[in-house]
């Protein structure tokens, strides 16, 4: 089964690494972590992402910019704010966003 590709954007390197690791604990998911908007925009075309998680440190200006870019590139993309920093909320947030 093909893994669901998830793009994670966050500014805190250790927290981003934790979120990516926790997402990848699910064998059906694969996470790509990006620290900057530029990195995230560049990564977006490399995989068939189904979901973008906007994590800690992503301000409103970046959020607007990324939302606009991702939605223009792929209108079906789901974009959600991730709260908690790779915590116990993560799986439920992803299930909710993917409607699974």
């Amino acid at each position, binding site marked *: 089964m093909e893994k669901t590709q998830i793009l994670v954007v*966050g500014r805190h390197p250790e927290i981003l690494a934790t979120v990516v690791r926790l997402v990848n604990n699910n064998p059906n998911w694969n996470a790509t972590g990006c620290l900057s908007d530029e990195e995230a925009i560049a990564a977006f075309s490399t995989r068939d992402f189904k979901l973008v998680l906007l994590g*800690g*440190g992503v301000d409103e200006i970046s959020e607007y910019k990324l939302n606009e870019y991702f939605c223009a590139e792929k209108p079906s993309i789901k974009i959600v*704010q991730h*709260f908690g*920093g790779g915590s116990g909320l993560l799986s439920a947030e992803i299930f909710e966003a993917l409607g699974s």
Partner: protein
Amino acid sequence: MAQTVLHKGNTRGHADHGWLHSYQSFSFAGYYNPQRMNFGALRVLNDDTVDPGMGFGKHPHDNMEIISIPLEGDLEHKDSMNNVAVIKNGDIQAMSAGTGIFHSEYNFDRTSEVKFLQIWIYPNKRNVEPRYDQISLNLEDRHNKLQQVLSPSPDDAGVWIHQDAWFHLGKFDKGVSTEYSIKKEGNGVYTFVLSGEVIINGETLNSRDALGIWDTDKFTVEAGTDSEFLLIDVPMKF
């Protein structure tokens, strides 16, 4: 007209990690129930019991208001802001994770379990500077009356967080009742019973049952038996 949701204690999620027994009122970690995602801004209410000397190793959080209320035993907290503290029954701890924080929590006692509530509230402002606060409460101030233990204001009673939320604890003798006025329009209240029997809106709640109530501005809480309970007043939209 008031709307309500009843969560019986035995319908909560449960995780048994050997050293940790966690009862989860809302979806958390391996417990996923789409009907139990949150009550307004209240996202997590975990009722945890940790074995002596055991605990949660260093782990991160961001953008969440995290409140710990010890019920029995001593809980040791260490974080990346160099806070080292032990909180015990009668204390309350609040942490704004904001842009990011690492912390650990251990049972400080080597012989007894620690039991505590961990409550997470969505913040009303993202990416704030992380902060930590803890206070000791006077247990007499909740005997047959409501004791405010958390608010949105540093100048009000209890600890404060980045959300229009208020927490009250009550320890009522059988038959005592009080009217609670919801603090802000659009808020709802999630009442979690710690012990005994509590009656709200004709609904009888037992230990670890919870009732959420919203679309009203006040309601009455009555102790059916000697009881202890927590009122969590949070925005329903945030």
